[in-house]
């Protein structure tokens, strides 16, 4: 009934107040994972965007913002249904999300065909970077392969001879190890795929110990990484080989990994101590707002998504009705990213720098810290397959 009234009201308003659109609230949908073990990542995503809006005085592009946060429950069909609700019931102009690649694949069609812009602050699958690139889809994070490539490049440059690599048995896991091998030319001791959400790595750890590798490279996001890091340390392997990883030791998992992860390496496009004034303000603001938690990449990329929307909307005078103008504005990335260097490639994925990061202790907390820049202005390897322009 409410909905009915408000749509009647909207129709009535249209007649009299065509120019008043700038005063109307900007509607942004958020599709993120808020239940289950991965909820902590989804919360970072939501918090980052909320903080961006708060830092902008509750506005983006000069318009008050109304957020519609939806929990995808990490179930693709639930995500599809919630995305459709955002488009159709709530009439959002932007959807920000999701965390997971399989959810992205599922909601791409309903969101972009429904006329909204989809901005992914995390998942960046290879298909949408290449052949299936989409004019209404933007990514403020990275292409999924890239952080793994950082580690591959690092291992290669450091002259490592033998590395043991491991990832979960799902498409992102396969992309991960492929990305690592694209740059690492030494011997791969073994390439292991574990079931998604495996908790006990005793079997794999024995194999790693027996392999005589110089380093291990793993992609084990969320709880998987927490378990693996603890068990790796307990098995006494941390003193025997280097630990290279992507999405395995970050600020979302470090509160549980603590000392066990000290000195471990990761590949990333950002770290909380990245040196610029805006980033410093963001990290401090986030800690103040969310009980002292240090933001992870999920939060920062989502914050950037908020800045992107803000900048692009300002460029078109806060109007969302001309999609082509808005798209052109988004493509220019008219904002200063927390990571510094940032622009979009032709496939709407970022061109940016990548770093090797290392886990350090900050007071009584743990965080990643920039160790070394590995790539400069790096374009993802799939961009050439994108026919858009």
């Amino acid at each position, binding site marked *: 009934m409410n*909905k*009915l009234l408000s*749509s009647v009201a909207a129709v009535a308003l249209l007649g009299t107040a065509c120019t008043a659109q700038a005063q109307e609230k900007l509607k942004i949908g958020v599709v993120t994972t*808020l*239940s289950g073990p991965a909820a902590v990542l989804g919360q970072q995503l939501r918090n980052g965007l909320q903080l961006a809006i708060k830092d902008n005085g509750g506005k983006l592009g000069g318009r008050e913002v109304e957020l519609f*946060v*939806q*929990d995808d429950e*990490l*179930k*693709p*069909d639930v995500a*599809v*249904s*919630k995305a*459709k*609700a955002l*488009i*159709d*019931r709530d009439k959002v102009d932007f959807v920000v999300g999701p965390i997971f*690649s*399989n959810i992205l*694949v*599922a909601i*791409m*069609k*309903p969101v972009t065909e429904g006329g909204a812009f989809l901005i992914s602050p995390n998942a960046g699958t290879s298909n949408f970077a290449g052949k299936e690139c989409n004019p209404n889809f933007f990514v403020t994070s990275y292409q999924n392969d890239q952080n793994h490539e950082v580690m591959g490049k690092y291992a290669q440059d450091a002259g490592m001879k033998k590395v043991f690599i491991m990832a979960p*048995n*799902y*498409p*992102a896991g*396969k992309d991960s190890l492929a990305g690592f091998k694209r740059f690492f030319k030494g011997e791969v001791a073994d390439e292991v795929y574990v079931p*998604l959400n495996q908790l006990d790595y005793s079997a794999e750890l024995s194999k790693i110990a027996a392999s005589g590798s110089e380093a291990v490279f793993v992609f084990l996001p969320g709880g998987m990484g927490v378990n693996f890091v603890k068990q790796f340390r307990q098995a006494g392997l941390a003193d025997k080989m280097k630990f290279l990883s992507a999405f395995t030791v970050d600020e979302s998992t470090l509160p549980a990994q603590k000392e066990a992860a000290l000195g471990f390496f990761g590949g990333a496009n950002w770290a909380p101590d990245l040196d610029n004034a805006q980033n410093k303000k963001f990290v401090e603001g986030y800690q103040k707002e969310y009980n002292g938690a240090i933001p992870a990449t999920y939060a920062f990329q989502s914050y950037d998504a908020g800045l992107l929307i803000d900048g692009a909307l300002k460029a078109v005078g806060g109007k969302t009705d001309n999609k082509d103008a808005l798209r052109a504005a988004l493509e220019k990335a008219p904002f200063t990213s927390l990571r510094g260097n940032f622009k979009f490639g032709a496939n709407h994925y970022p061109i940016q720098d990548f770093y090797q990061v290392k886990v350090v202790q900050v007071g009584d907390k743990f965080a990643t810290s920039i160790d070394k820049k590995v790539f400069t202005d790096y374009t993802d390897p799939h961009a050439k397959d994108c026919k858009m322009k």
Partner: protein
Amino acid sequence: MNFVRRTEALPIAIFLVLALAPVAASFGAETYLLNLFTRVMIYGIAALALDFLCGYGGLVSFGHAAFVGIGAYTAAIFGAHGVSEIAITLPVALIVSALFAYLTGTVCLRTKSVYFIMITLAFGQMIYFVAGSLSPYGGDDGLTLKLRSTLFGFPILQNDRALYYAVLLFLLGSYLLLRAVVASRFGRVFRGSKENPTRMATIGFHVFSYQRVAYVIAGCLGGLSGFLLANATEFVSPSYMSWQRSGELIIMVLFGGIGTLHGAIVGAAAFLLLEDMLGGITENWKLIFGPMLVLIVLFARGGLLGLATSIKERLSRG
């Protein structure tokens, strides 16, 4: 006479509401509501099939989502190869589901009660892991359908409303089919096998083969539901057949009122609408939903329908 009319009234009302819902939806957020109710009806078909097994045959399957997954994957895999013709894909989906039901039924039906629950779970998990390893078809990430199924080359399901009514017809068809089966001689033997299998065997019925046929029927309907689900969400993933989904189907059946058939539709609607509504109120909606399940079991024997009946009785008693 009065009694018959009253038992008929509810199913008729349910289908009338479903038939008219799109008209009401056109005043609000149409595609969203259509989408939601399409999902309700699709899960309704799967829940109907499960109610037929549990409520009439005492066969509690904890792996029914496997059939939903098989149906969905058949549609999606054909779609990935450019075949979206219903006249081809639907029969194949049904045949594959039936085959899977026949084979696993042959094994599962040797066991009873809790062992049956667990062995159906085992087969559900196996097919779940198989789907997750289908890397050409997306593996764990799932697979997007390029377009919805077509009938003789016409994209009749492309329109959400057309899809809605197609699903409604399938739901009605499934409901009428199962009612006919339950009322038939076959159905009486099947029901008897729940009450007293030994007696049925002594009378001379080969209970096992009756149960297996029933299992195949339920499996086919599960496959049908999956086929429609793939078309509605235009997406399939292994999560369609996780054990949690099988559990949700059981909840739907019990929610509405077990052993009534139309209760399963009510249960599916109640479950999905509640999930949607509570999810809109708070992200911690499970804090509300969990205790609700407990309360329904403790105080509403016979599910929502049972609750409605007992309230009515209490009121009429004065």
